[in-house]
Structure formats: C-alpha cells, structure tokens
C-alpha cells in the first residue's frame, strides 16, 4: 500500500521536475523575443548595454515614430507585405478548397493521376522554379511588382492536400441528400460543404498567411526595388541604413513586422496546431 503510494508520489515528483526543466527551456526560447521587444523601447544610447535587459524600461514610442519618419518607405513596404499575404491567403482558400472538393467528392476520369501529379509539387523547392519565373516576369514586367510574387502562390499542393484530408473525414450524407433534391454541385459546395470546413479553412488561412508573410528567398529575387519590397527582405536593408549604431530603430521596425503573426498565433493557436497535426499525422 504505502509502497504504491510512494511510487505514485515519486512519479508526480519526476513529472514536475521534468516540467520545471522544460519551463526553463521555454523561457530561454522566448528570450530573443523579449530582448527584441524591450530593445525597441530603449534609447539608442542604451542599446548595447550589458547585462542585457529583457524588459522595456518605458513604453516611449520614439523609436517607432523614427522608423515611420525615416527615409525608408516603411509603410509602403508594410502595405506590400499585407497585400501579398492577403491575396495569397484568399487565393489559396478559394482554389484549394474548390480542388479539394473535386478530389474528395466528385468522380471524373484522371482524378487520381491529377492528384498524384499535384502532390509531387510538394517536393519542388522554390529554387527549382524561380529562374524561369524570374526570366518570364522580366519579360512581361512583373518583376518588382508585389502582385508578381502573389501570383506564384495562388494555389498550393499543401493546401489542396490539407483540405482534401479534412473533407474525407467529414460525412457526405447531407451533400448526397442535396444532390438527390437536384441541387447543382456548386450550390452543394457553397451551401453545405463550405460551412463544415470552417476549422480547416482557418487552419489553412493562418498557415498560408504566416508562410507568405515570411517569404524571403523568392521575395529577394523578384522584388529587389525598395518600394516593392516585403518586410523580411526590407529588414535586412533597414539594418544597413539605420543599423549602424541604431539597433533600437531596427528592433522597433521588427516589432511592428512580427506583430500580425504573433497576434494570429495568440488568438488562433488552436487552429494552427490542428492544421499542422492534421497534415503531419495522416500523411
């Protein structure tokens, strides 16, 4: 009796010891974020102060104002990032859901072959498509156009795959009943399937927005001119312009740049995690 009790207590003890260790690690993971945030509120004179401090001394927005007033078109760059991320997110939600509906609900010749060809797309890195796209864009004048980057990603193999997985796990009874009643496929898709897909749409939307917000390789190649840049690339440029001694400004710009993604994650953690597990587990 008492032996069993002891081992149980011992096990709880071990549990908490492990949680404590992971907790310390977790705080360590967050330190770069805290440092960045606190730095953005610090006057330049204290920027390199050691020991480092991870809490903002005050909430004086001077550095933020300075970024907006600088000669780098920060707001324009921010707008570019927003435009691209929104276009791509909406585009993928539409195209991927439509395709996924066909792949999971409709029968037509060549369906499985087509789906397989689409899945192979998961294995092609941007590196192997970017040269011809760049050369083509240069010809039609789409380089240095934010829309050009968005066009590349209006659909995605991952999105189709994720939505199809989700649809396959949903019951079909309602859709079949509507078909019997003579409803057209587009009506069934819009009225019956789409409302059921809300969790998957949120997951795909958030994942896509974040991914697009963070593109660097493609953005750096296609959008080289300052007024067409996106934030990740611009940050590197900002660092050169303002960074010589003015770390605080760069960190203020960075805080503003990570804000949408951090907010998305704080308020929609559940959807992000569900989306990722859905694609990873049922592979």
């Amino acid at each position, binding site marked *: 009796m008492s032996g069993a009790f002891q081992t149980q207590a011992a096990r709880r003890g071990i*549990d908490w010891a*492990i*949680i404590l260790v*992971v907790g310390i*690690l*977790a705080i360590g993971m*967050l330190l*770069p*974020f805290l440092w960045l945030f606190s730095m953005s509120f610090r006057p330049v004179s204290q920027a390199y102060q050691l*020991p480092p401090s991870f809490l903002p001394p005050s909430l004086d927005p001077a550095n933020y104002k300075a970024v907006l007033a600088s000669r780098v078109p920060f707001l324009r760059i921010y707008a570019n990032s927003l435009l691209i991320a929104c276009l791509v997110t909406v585009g993928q939600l539409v*195209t991927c859901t*439509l*395709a996924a*509906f066909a*792949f999971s609900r*409709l*029968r*037509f010749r060549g*369906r499985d072959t*087509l789906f397989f*060809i*689409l899945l192979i797309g998961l*294995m*092609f*890195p941007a*590196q*192997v*498509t*970017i*040269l*011809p*796209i760049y050369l083509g864009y240069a010809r039609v004048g789409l380089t240095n156009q934010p829309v050009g980057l968005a*066009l*590349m990603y209006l*659909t995605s*193999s991952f999105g*189709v795959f994720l939505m199809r997985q989700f649809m396959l796990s949903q019951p079909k009874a309602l859709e079949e009943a509507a078909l019997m009643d003579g409803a*057209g*496929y*587009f009506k069934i898709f819009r009225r019956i399937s789409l409302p059921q897909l809300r969790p998957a749409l949120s997951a795909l939307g958030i994942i896509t927005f*974040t991914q697009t917000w*963070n593109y*660097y*390789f493609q953005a750096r*190649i296609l959008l080289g001119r300052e007024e067409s840049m996106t934030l*990740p*690339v611009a*940050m*590197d440029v900002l*660092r050169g312009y303002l960074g010589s001694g003015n770390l605080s400004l760069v960190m203020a710009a*960075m805080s503003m740049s*990570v804000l949408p*993604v*951090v907010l998305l*994650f704080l308020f929609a*953690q559940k959807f*992000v995690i569900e989306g990722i*597990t859905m694609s*990873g*587990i049922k592979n």
Partner: protein
Amino acid sequence: MTAAPFRKRRPSDLERAQARAGYLFVLPTSVLYLTFVLAPVTLTIILSFSFYDPMLGSRWVGLENYTRFFSDPRSLQIFWNTLRFTFFAVTFNVSVGLLLAVALNRAMPAWLLYFFRLAFFLPVMIAIAFAAIVWSYFLANDLGVANYYLRLFGLPGVPWLTDSSVAMTSIIIVDVWKNTGFFMIIFIAALQGVPKSLMEAAAMDGTPAWRRFFRITLPYISPVVFFAIVYASIGALQVYESIVILTQGGPGDATRSLSILIVEQGFGSFQIGYAAAISVVMTLIILAITALQQILSRKWVHQ
C-alpha cells in the same frame, strides 16, 4: 474503335454532370500549378543542359553544367556544407522535438500547456529573416549577449559567427531554436495516439520507462518520425536566409549553402544554366530522400 467487342457503358447524365463539375473545380488549381510549378520545373531542367544568356542567346551544352558542379572544389565544398547542415539540423530538430514532446506528454494544467506551446512554437511562426537578425546581435563577438554570459562565468567568449570552425554550429543552433517546435507539436499529437492500455500493461509488468519508449512508443509513432525526417530534410536542404543574414556564407565559404550558390550564380553572375543545374541537383536529392522514405516506411513501419 469500330470492332470494339464491348461497348463502353455510356455514362449517365448524372455521371457526366459530375465529371464536368469535377474538371471545373480543379481548373483554377491546375492552370496555376501548370504555370507556376510544372512549366518552370521543366524549363529549369532544359536550362540546366544549356548555356543561356538573355543577351547572348542560348545553346545546348549537354552535361557541362553538371560536370562543372561536380568537379569544381568550391561548389563541392558548398554541396558538402549543405549536406552537413542538413544532417545535423534534421537530427537535432527531430530528436529535440521528440524529447520535448515526450517531456510534455504528461498531465499538467491547461494554461501551462498553452504557455509551452506558445514558447516553443512562436519561433516557428516568425520569419527566419527576423529571427536571424536578433540572433546576429545575440551572437556578436564583443557586445553579444551570449558571450557576455560566457564571460560572466569566467569562460572565454566564442567567435560564434566569425570563426569558420564554429559558424556552421551557430547556424545549426539558430535553426534548431527556430524549427524544433514544429516537430514537437507533431510528435505531441502522435504520442496521444499511442494506446494507453498498452503502456499501462507494460508498466505493470515492470518494464522500465526507457524500454517502453523504445519497444512500444517509438515503433508506434514511427510513421510520423519518418514524415518528420523527410519534411525536415526538404526544408534544411533549401537553407538560405539564416545564413545570408548571419554570416553571408562566410567566413570564406564555410557556411555557404546551395541556395546561396544558386542565387549568386543565377542572379549575380548570370550563369543561368549553371544555376539551373544546381537547383536540379537539389531537387533530385529531395526526390531521392522522399523515395527512400516511401520504401523504408513500407518495409518497417506497418507491423
């Protein structure tokens, strides 16, 4: 056609309407996929066998770009860098992620789990370009945060980004900080699928915990582990921005990766055919890893 022994059953109206709807629904994705994936990949393959210059025109050069890649000591060193990075980044991302998942796969208050997910997953959500800039200040030699703490404990500072024997390790550390949370999340979900009854029965028999892990848990989640390894490899082989921002590929070529070489050759020196060949090599490795995973997982996983 005329003497077909069996006439194909004529599809009913319903079937035809369904097929028509099907093609219509996949049309946007198919057109975009053809334009922005299949056609560019095909063109890249063709380019990789040619000398191409927008001004000077183009000509077929056969395997020249490939032999150049595999005989130039510089590109071989960069190739080796990328493989080395991939090996260590994948190993640590996946194993640390698994370790964290096992550590977190126990009873704890909901707010604590939320906090842990937040802490480990936030780096995954942030652009590596942003994260790398912060890290570049953390890892600076004299005014860096990391060296400040090392010196505080009487240890010598480490030239994290400026010494060719350390720089790659630093890049890997940043990569693991950035990505391991992704694998943690996947593994947490996988661990929850391991039947509790099986684990409890083994615990009753007095099987030690580490043995239960290797005998029951690991085989059970092995498909997810395989997926994680392949996914991590595909990502790691493309490593670009963290290196560009932290070391610009240096010191020397110590941390230069294939992606950096592609950009440098294709967009810096306008060696477009050569850059195309390098990107094809990268893609072939990705395909090989994926194929290997398919074969191995068919052999091992489902038993």
